[in-house]
C-alpha cells in the first residue's frame, strides 16, 4: 500500500461505492467549472492569431499592455477607486456595527434592518439611484444646493462620485462581515481597560482598534477585491466621465466591434493576478486569526457602552446617515418610477404620479423575460450549488486529507475570480467548442453556479461543523448506508442552512451583473442586464420601476423563506 493509503480497492471497492461515486462526480464537476474556463483564458491571453494565420503563443499581448502609459493610468484609477471605496465602506459599516453591538443606542433592530436593506436592491439600480441624486444637472442633491445658492457641488461622474457610490454599496456587506467579529469580542478586555481608568475614547483607541485590526484588515481586503472587480459603478458612473478602470476596460474590449477578445483576456489576467494575490493574503490573514483573542466564543455577557448624553444625538446622526445612504437612493428610484418623465421631486410633481412606467414594463417582453430568466436560472443554480455544497462541505468537515482539501480549494477559487473574468472565460470557451451553449440560459446558469458555489460551501461547511460527527456515525452503525445517512440524518439537521443558502443564491442571481453582462445576448438576459440596457437606452423611469419590482420580489422571497425556516435568512448570525 502506498503512503497515502490510496489504492484502487480503497477508493472504489470497500462498500463505499455510492459515497465515492457521488464525491467523484462532484469533484469532476467542480474541476470542470473552475479549471477549464481559467485555462481557456490563459490560453487566449498568450496566443496570437494573425488574420487567416496559425495560432502562435507569445507574451506579446502582455508586453504591449505593459508598454503603454495608458495601462498604468487605468491601473492607478482601479487602485484609487478600490482603496477609496473600501475605506468608505469600512468607515461607515464599521461604525454602524460598533454602535449597534457595543453601545446603548436605541432601536438597534431598526438600524440593523435599515443598514442591510440595500441587499434587496440590485447594485445596478443603486448606482442609477445615485446618478439621479448626484448628477451635475438633474441630481436631486445638486438641485438642493443650487436652491440654497451653493451651486452644483456634487458630481456623480467623477472619481469621488465613484468612490462614494462604490463604498456605500458595500456597507451592508461590511456590516455582515464585521458582525461576528464584534459579537465574539471578549468584553472583559474592554472592561479591564475601563477598570484601569481608561476613558471611553481611550478604550476605543487603545484596546478596541488594535484587537479588531485583523478583522478590519480582512474586511478591507475583501472590499478591495470586490471593488476592483466591480464593473457596475465604473460603467454607469465612470465611463461617461472618461474614467477608465481595469474592469471597464475589459468590458469595452469585449463589446467593441469586432470583439477584441485578446486584449480583454490580457487585462483579465492582470485583474485576476491582483485579486488572486489579495485573496491569498486574505486567507493567510484569517487563518492566523486564532492568535487574536477577539475571534470565536460566544455567550459573553455583553455590556453595552453607555453613551450618556450623546445617546440621542448619536442616534439622530445614525438616522441621518442611513437616510442618506439607504433612504435617498430608494426614494429617488421610487419617485422616478412614478413620474411620466424625469424630474426632481417636488410638491407640484405629486399631481403627475402615474403607474405608467409599470404599465410599460408589463408590455415589454424583455422585462418579463429578464425576471423569468433570473428566476429559472437562479432557482436551478441554487439547487445545484447547494447540492454540490453539501457533498463538498461534508467531505471537508468529515474527511480531512489532501483530496478533500484540493476539492475545497477548487470550490473556493471562484471567490477570487472576478465575475467579469468568469464571464469572459466562459464566452471564449463556449464560442470555441461545438456545443450550442453560447447565447442560451445554460451559459448564464454555468456562470451562476461557478460564482455562487464558494458561498454555498461556506454555509454547508459551518453547517456540518455544527453537526456532531457521532450523529452520522450512529446512523452508519445502525446499518444505514452513506447515502441514507446523509438523507435521513444530515440533510434534516442541515435544513435551515440549506434554505438560507438556497434563497441567498437566488438573491445573488438578481444582483449578479458582471458575468452576465458579457454572456448575455438577445433572449437570455437575466434581470440585471435588462435593467442596465433600459438605463443605457435612456428609459430611466422604466428602469426605476423595474428596480422597485425586483425589490418586492426579493423581499417576498426572503420573508417566505424566513417563515419556512423559522429563522433569519438575511442578517448576521446571532
Amino acid at each position, binding site marked *: *500500500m502506498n503512503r497515502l*493509503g490510496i*489504492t484502487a*480497492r*480503497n477508493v472504489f471497492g*470497500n*462498500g*463505499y461505492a455510492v459515497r465515492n461515486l457521488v464525491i467523484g462526480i462532484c469533484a469532476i464537476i467542480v474541476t470542470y467549472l473552475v479549471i477549464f474556463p481559467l485555462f481557456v483564458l490563459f490560453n487566449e491571453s498568450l496566443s496570437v492569431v494573425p488574420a487567416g494565420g496559425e495560432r502562435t503563443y507569445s507574451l506579446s499581448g502582455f508586453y504591449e499592455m505593459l508598454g503603454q502609459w495608458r495601462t498604468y493610468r487605468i491601473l492607478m484609477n482601479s487602485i484609487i477607486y478600490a482603496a477609496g471605496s473600501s475605506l468608505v465602506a469600512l468607515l461607515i459599516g464599521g461604525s454602524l456595527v460598533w454602535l449597534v453591538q457595543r453601545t446603548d443606542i436605541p432601536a438597534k433592530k431598526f438600524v440593523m434592518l435599515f443598514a442591510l436593506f440595500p441587499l434587496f436592491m440590485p447594485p445596478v439600480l443603486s448606482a442609477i439611484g445615485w446618478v439621479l441624486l448626484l448628477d451635475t444637472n438633474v441630481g436631486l442633491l445638486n438641485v438642493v444646493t443650487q436652491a440654497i445658492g451653493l451651486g452644483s457641488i456634487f458630481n456623480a461622474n467623477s472619481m469621488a462620485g465613484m468612490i462614494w457610490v462604490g463604498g456605500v454599496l458595500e456597507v451592508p456587506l461590511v456590516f455582515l462581515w464585521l458582525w461576528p467579529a464584534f459579537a465574539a469580542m471578549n468584553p472583559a478586555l474592554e472592561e479591564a481597560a475601563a477598570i484601569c481608568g481608561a476613558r471611553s475614547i481611550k478604550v476605543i483607541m487603545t484596546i478596541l482598534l488594535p484587537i479588531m485590526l485583523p478583522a478590519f484588515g480582512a474586511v478591507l481586503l475583501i472590499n478591495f477585491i470586490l471593488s476592483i472587480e466591480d464593473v457596475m459603478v465604473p460603467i454607469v458612473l465612470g465611463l461617461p466621465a472618461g474614467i477608465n478602470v481595469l474592469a471597464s476596460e475589459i468590458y469595452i474590449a469585449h463589446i467593441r466591434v469586432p470583439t477584441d477578445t485578446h486584449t480583454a483576456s490580457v487585462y483579465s489576467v492582470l485583474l485576476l493576478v491582483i485579486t488572486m494575490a489579495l485573496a491569498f493574503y486574505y486567507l493567510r490573514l484569517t487563518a492566523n486569526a486564532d492568535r487574536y483573542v477577539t475571534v470565536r466564543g460566544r455567550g459573553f455577557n455583553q455590556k453595552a457602552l453607555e453613551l450618556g448624553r450623546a445617546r440621542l444625538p448619536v442616534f439622530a446622526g445614525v438616522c441621518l446617515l442611513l437616510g442618506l445612504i439607504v433612504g435617498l437612493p430608494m426614494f429617488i428610484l421610487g419617485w422616478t418610477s412614478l413620474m411620466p418623465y424625469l424630474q426632481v421631486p417636488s410638491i407640484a410633481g405629486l399631481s403627475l404620479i402615474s403607474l405608467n412606467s409599470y404599465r410599460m414594463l408589463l408590455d415589454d417582453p424583455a422585462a418579463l423575460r429578464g425576471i423569468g430568466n433570473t428566476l429559472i436560472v437562479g432557482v436551478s443554480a441554487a439547487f445545484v450549488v447547494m447540492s454540490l455544497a453539501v457533498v463538498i462541505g461534508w467531505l471537508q468537515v468529515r474527511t*480531512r*486529507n489532501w483530496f478533500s482539501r484540493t476539492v475545497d480549494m477548487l470550490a473556493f477559487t471562484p471567490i477570487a475570480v472576478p465575475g467579469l473574468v468568469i464571464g469572459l472565460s466562459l464566452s471564449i470557451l463556449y464560442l470555441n467548442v461545438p456545443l450550442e451553449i453560447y447565447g442560451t440560459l445554460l451559459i448564464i446558469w454555468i456562470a451562476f453556479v461557478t460564482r455562487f458555489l464558494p458561498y454555498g460551501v461556506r454555509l454547508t461547511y459551518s453547517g456540518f461543523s455544527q453537526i*456532531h460527527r*457521532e*450523529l452520522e*456515525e*450512529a*446512523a*452508519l*452503525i*445502525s*446499518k*444505514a*448506508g*452513506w447515502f*441514507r445517512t446523509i438523507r*435521513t*440524518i444530515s440533510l*434534516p*439537521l442541515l435544513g435551515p442552512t440549506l434554505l438560507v443558502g438556497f434563497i441567498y443564491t437566488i438573491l445573488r442571481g438578481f444582483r449578479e451583473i458582471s458575468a452576465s453582462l458579457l454572456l448575455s445576448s438577445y433572449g437570455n438576459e437575466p434581470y440585471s442586464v435588462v435593467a442596465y440596457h433600459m438605463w443605457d437606452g435612456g428609459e430611466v423611469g422604466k428602469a426605476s420601476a423595474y428596480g422597485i419590482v425586483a425589490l418586492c420580489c426579493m423581499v417576498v422571497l426572503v420573508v417566505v423563506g424566513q417563515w419556512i425556516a423559522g429563522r433569519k435568512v438575511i442578517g448576521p448570525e446571532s
Partner: protein
Amino acid sequence: MIQISRLYKTYPGSKYTPVDDLSLEIQDGHFFTLLGPSGCGKSTTLRCIAGLERPDQGEIKINGVSVFSAEAGRNLPPYKRALSMVFQSYAIWPHMTVFQNVAYPLKCQGQSREDIRKEVAWSLDLVGLGHLADRPAPLLSGGEQQRVALARAIAGRSKVILFDEPLSNLDAKLRETMRSEIRALHQQLKFTALYVTHDQEEAFSMSDMVAIMNKGKVRELGSPEELYTTPRSEFGAEFLGARTKVSGTVRGRTDDNLLVVETPLGVVHCRHFADHPPGTSVFVYVRQSEILPSEGAAQPGAPVFSARIDSVEFVGDTIDWVARAGDIALHGRSLLGRPDCKKIREHLNEAIDLQIVSACCVPST
C-alpha cells in the same frame, strides 16, 4: 468473539501512533473493558473495530468474520459489521422522537412495521423509558438520552455492543445507577460488551476482563482482581494507584509463593505476576492501605523501619499522609478516627515506626 491482531493506526499528519501493535481477544458474552489514561488510543481502537476509522495494519475479526484485513485489503463499512455502539455524546438524533431514534436501526434492517413497534417497546421498557416513546429527543435530560442510546443499541439484538465512555457526561450518582443497569442488561441479554473508560472504578465494577492501555499498547490484561493484586508493569501498578515505589533485588521465594525481595527498608514478601529468579532487580509497589504505623516487632517479610511524617492531608473519610525514610517517599492512608490515624497526626514532623504489611513487585526496566 472479537479478535484483533497486530493492529496499527496513525492519523495522517501526526507522528503519534494511537494504536500500536495491538492484539486482543474478547470472548463471547464477556464484558471487556479497555482502561487507560486520556489520549492512549482507546476510542481509536473502538472506532477501528466499528469501522469508523481505517487502521493501517493488522486484522479484525468479529464472530469469525474478517471485517478488516490490511493484507487482503478488506475494510467493511460499519453497516456491514454485526455490532452496535453507544457513543460518548449519546448521538441521539435531535430531529426525531425517542421512538424514531430507537426504531432507526430496525428500519435500516428492513424489519416490518409491526416488528419494529414491538421491538422498540421491548427495548424502551428494558431501559425504563416506555412512557417517553413520543417525546422529541431534544426534550430529554442527559440521563434519559443515555438510556435512549442504550435502547437503540440493544434494539437490533446485536451480539456485540461497543461502549465509548458512555457515562462520562453524567453526574456521579447517575453514573453509579447506570453502571449497574448496563451490567444488568449485559447479564440478561448476554451480548459481548467492549467498554471504554478512563475510570478505574467503573472498569473494575463492571468487567469480566480489563485491558489497561497506554500509548497505543495493551500493558496489562486480566480480571479486575488479578490486575489489582498483581500488576505486571510499572505503568499498571502506578495507574491502579500504588503510590510507594521502592527498588529491590529478588533473593528467593517463600512457601506460599511470594517473592522475597531485599529493599533498603528491609526484606519484603511480594505478590508477583511473573516469576523472577534470585538476583533480578525489581520495583516493589506498596499501596496506601498496605503501610501502617507499627504495632510491635517486625514479622518475616513485613519490615519495620523508622520514618518521618512529612505531611498529613485531610481527605474526608480518610487522611492521606506522606512519610520519608532516607530518600524514599512513603504514601499512606488511614481511616479517620482509628488509633493509627491519631498516631500519625500526633507524629507530624516527627519520627515514627512504620511497617509494610504487604506489597507487590514488577520487574524493573
